[in-house]
Structures are given as structure tokens and as C-alpha cells.
């Protein structure tokens, strides 16, 4: 066991043993065409953490999330969510995919998209009820998009589209959230709105995992961090694992700009 993993081991041991962890990954490997994308991942995330998943392009961040959600086949290893398989826990899991993963010309309004968050609990043949519509509207209000509820989604700005996705995650009413780059190409107002929302989710005891690219904001936004580059380089409280040394090991020598930004952050603390 590498020394970087120590902090979370301690948390695991001191945490209440009766309650199972929101996310526990053991020996997870995923390969495409026999080429591993993520390799032998071991991770435990304690309850109520705001977690950033950080690493260079191609580090396997999205793959890690998709493997947790059973969206891609695992080559080996297990993932347990609150002590059970994803299949049994899916109603407690919320997912925000990458914004580019869908066709924004699709004939639906922002409200329609948000209401999709309720589909999972509806079951076959059931229609969206008035109550879920009201819930969806409420979620849109919370992300500041109430006035845009009936707009076709291509007429929203990138930031508004991202907030629509977050509102959809809110109505999923999950206990653990997986978000794939919710901060990608959003305006400053949206970034603030998302951060506020994440903190609010955390206050309500939710666990949130976020794939994040902007190293400079990691210590400010997230209290727990996973540094990933095919393998887990380090995981634990951000102020312990987000060090110059770990970042260098995650990004290698190739990303000097990132390293410089990270240096600044580390120095400023």
C-alpha cells in the first residue's frame, strides 16, 4: 500500500463500521481492446465529502465514473455503493454526464430534460406526474433557470445547459452524485452557481464526486481529492494529498503550465 493511501485508510477505520461507505472500489481495471484505461483502482470515499477527480487527459476519469455506474464493462474488480452493487443502489445514485454527450437540438424543453431525472423512479408505463413536474420546476428555480423552463434546449447558453443537467440531478434526489466535468466551458456566474449547489448538497449529507480540470480551484471547492492517472496516484483530504509532489506524479513532466498553477496554489496556502 502506498503511503498516499494512508489518510483514507484511517478514515475508513475510524468511521462508523455499521454504516457502509458511499463508494468503495476494489481492484478495478477497465480495458478497451485489451489495453487498460484504468488499472487496479482501490478507492474508498467517506460519506458527505465533496470529491474532485483530477488527472491529465486520458487518465481514465470518465471511465472510472462510467465503470462505477455499470455503463461500461469492468475487466476485473468490484464497485460497491453503500455496501451493495450498483444495480441494487441505482436509486440512490445521481449522474451528470458530459454536456457534449447529448444532442442539444433534441425536441425537448429545459423542463422536459429536468423531468427526465424522475423517470428512474417512475417505472414502466407511468407518466410524469404533476408533482414531479412541480419538483422539476423547483429544481430549475434553484439553478436560476425558472424563466427558461419552456425554452428548447439549444437556445440555452452552455452554462445554462450545464445548469439544466444539474437541476436534473437534483430531482434524481440521490445520496451520491457522479458529475463528469460540470465546470467545462461555463461562465463565471454558472461556476459560482454550481459551487454553491455542490456545497448545499454536501450540507445535506450527500456525497459528490466531480471530474474537474481547473487545478487552481481544487483546494477552494473540494475537501477530498482523487489524483488519477490510470492508477490512483493519491486520494484523501485535499489539503493532504494536493501537493506539488503528487501533482507532478499525476501529470508527469509534460504539463508545465498546470504545474506552475499548482505551485502557486500550494505556495499560497
Amino acid at each position: 500500500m502506498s503511503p498516499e493511501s494512508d489518510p483514507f485508510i484511517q478514515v475508513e477505520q475510524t468511521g462508523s463500521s455499521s454504516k457502509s461507505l458511499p463508494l468503495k472500489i476494489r481492484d478495478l481495471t477497465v480495458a478497451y481492446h485489451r489495453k487498460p484505461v484504468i488499472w487496479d483502482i482501490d478507492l474508498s470515499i467517506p460519506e458527505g465529502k465533496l470529491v474532485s477527480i483530477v488527472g491529465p487527459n486520458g487518465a481514465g476519469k470518465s471511465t472510472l465514473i462510467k465503470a462505477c455506474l455499470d455503463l461500461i464493462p469492468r475487466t476485473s474488480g468490484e464497485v460497491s455503493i453503500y455496501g451493495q452493487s450498483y444495480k441494487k443502489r441505482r436509486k440512490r445514485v445521481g449522474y451528470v454526464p458530459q454536456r457534449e454527450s447529448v444532442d442539444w437540438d433534441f425536441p425537448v424543453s429545459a423542463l422536459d430534460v429536468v423531468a427526465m431525472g424522475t423517470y428512474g423512479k417512475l417505472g414502466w408505463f407511468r407518466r410524469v406526474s404533476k408533482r414531479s413536474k412541480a419538483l422539476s420546476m423547483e429544481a430549475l428555480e434553484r439553478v436560476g433557470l425558472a424563466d427558461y423552463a419552456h425554452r428548447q434546449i439549444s437556445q440555452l447558453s452552455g452554462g445554462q445547459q450545464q445548469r439544466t443537467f444539474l437541476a436534473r440531478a437534483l430531482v434524481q434526489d440521490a445520496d451520491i452524485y457522479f458529475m463528469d466535468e460540470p465546470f467545462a466551458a461555463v461562465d463565471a456566474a454558472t461556476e459560482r452557481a454550481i459551487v454553491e449547489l455542490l456545497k448545499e448538497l454536501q450540507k445535506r449529507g450527500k456525497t459528490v464526486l466531480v471530474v474537474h480540470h481547473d487545478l487552481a480551484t481544487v483546494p477552494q471547492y473540494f475537501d477530498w481529492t482523487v489524483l488519477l492517472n490510470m492508477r490512483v496516484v493519491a486520494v484523501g483530504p485535499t489539503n493532504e494529498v494536493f501537493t506539488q509532489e503528487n501533482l507532478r506524479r499525476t501529470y508527469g513532466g509534460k504539463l508545465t503550465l498546470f504545474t506552475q498553477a499548482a505551485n502557486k496554489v500550494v505556495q499560497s496556502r
Partner: protein
Amino acid sequence: MEWYSIDTWIVVIGALAAGACALLGNFLVLRKMSMMGDAISHAVLPGLAIAFLVTGARASLSMFIGAAIVGVLTAVFTQWISRFGKVDEGASMGIVFTTLFALGLLLIVQGADHVDLDPSCVLYGAIELTPLDVVWRPTLFGYFIEVPRAALVLVGVALLNTVFVVAFFKELRISSFDAELATAMGIHSKLMHYLLMSLVAVTTVACFEAVGSIIVIAMLIVPAATAHLLTDRLWLMVVLSVLIAIVSAVLGHLSALILPACFGFADTSTSGMMAVMAGLIFSTVVLFAPKYGVLPRLVRKTEAVR
């Protein structure tokens, strides 16, 4: 122009075929897999030919079951080949459906001595002949009605497709828009995909006699693509696509009767004219659709500049 009861039936059959296709076409267009409709409509041919050679009957139940199987197989093979053959999905579709279609064509040509199914009918259908095959003669309000088999079969398929779209509207919507979220939520996107593919196959077979394997692609795709330009609501898109399909069927037959006569020719292929009409409606909508049309956009742009 003279109008016979046979013309009414041609229009009814054309409208039913076009409507049944348009219902499913919406989801092919939105899932960006229009060419899958193309592939399946061709790939079902060997299944059809085999069922036909074995049972000797057209539009038999075994034919539909065979078609559904081949439809799903086409989708499965396409995915396999693109995964293992290191080619993109378009190329792998091209491999699967041309091979199957060629196989079907060979079977038909070989069996042509024994059966009355000829290649040109496979390609373009023979909607003008379908009303002659009468299977049901009810009396309604004192009128003696001769219902052709094609009409009965297409009513069944149109109903089946309507039930499918209405019952699974929510599932179709989410799995077409965001398949990953749908899967993560436990809504079986893959199941929806294969259900859609089998219905496309069944619908194609039902429409085969009437419109053939090429015109059926126009009916799957064009009304849905047209409707997409006219609305931002999914349910309205589905309704509009069916209306557009019916209008192109009616206009298609009317113009098949009238237009060639104007130029001194005998009347022409109705199914061909239906596809032409659908194309004309699409072109009109591309130009003039209130929100997404080329001209209204241009007008808005110039106004904005001013």
C-alpha cells in the same frame, strides 16, 4: 381523371404505410441512426425470401417473425463488426446490409421460377396491385366493401407502432436523448434499441409489397425529418410526422394520376410519387419553417443587422 374504389384503397394503403413508418422514423432520426432504417429495410430480404419460398405466402406471420429476427440481427451484427472489425458503424452497416440484401436477391432470382416475387417489385413495390388481393368483404351501412389484405396488415402494424410509441414514450424519449443516463437509471436503453429495430423490420416487411425496400426509407425518414424542423416538442413532432406522411400519400397518388397525363404520358408509379411529394414537402419546410427555415432565419438576421 377518374376515381375508382381502387384509387381510394391505394391512398389508404399508402397513407397507412407512410404513417406506420413515420411513427418509428422519428426515433431513427433523433437517434441519428436513419441509415439503420435503410440497412434493415434491405437486410430483411433474405428472411422474407426464405419465408416466402418455404410457406409460399406473402405477409404471413412467419414472414414477420423472420423479419423481426433479421432486423435485430442486423443491428447486432453491425455493432459486432464495428467493434471487432475496427471499422466505424457506417462501414459495418454497409457490410451487413449489402451482404444480406444480395443474399436475398440471389434467393429470389433462384426461386423466381416457382414464385411470383420479382426483383423490381422488391425495390419499388407494386402499390397499384395491392387492392386486387381482397381478403375481407364486409357490408357497412349497406355498402359492400372489399378490404385488401395489404390494408388489413398495415392497419395492424400501424396500430402496433402507435401502441409502442405511446406506451414507451417516456423510455423512448430518454433513451434517445441521453442513453447513458437512461441506462444508469435502469431504463433498459439497449432493449428499447432492439425493440425499435425489430419494429422497423416488421414495418418494412408490411410495407414491402406496397412501396418496396427503397421508397420505404423515404417514408421512415423524410416525414420525421420534416416534422423536426417544425416543432420543439417531441409529441408534436410525432403527430406532425404522421400527418405529413398521410398528406404525402394522398398528394402522391393524386399527382401520379394527374401530372403525367398533363404531359401526355400514362399515369406513373404512385409509391415513387409519394416519396417525391414527401421530398417536396421537406424542401418547402426547409425553406419556410417559421423557426428553423432558411428564409425566416435570413429575414431575422437582416432585421437584426438593421
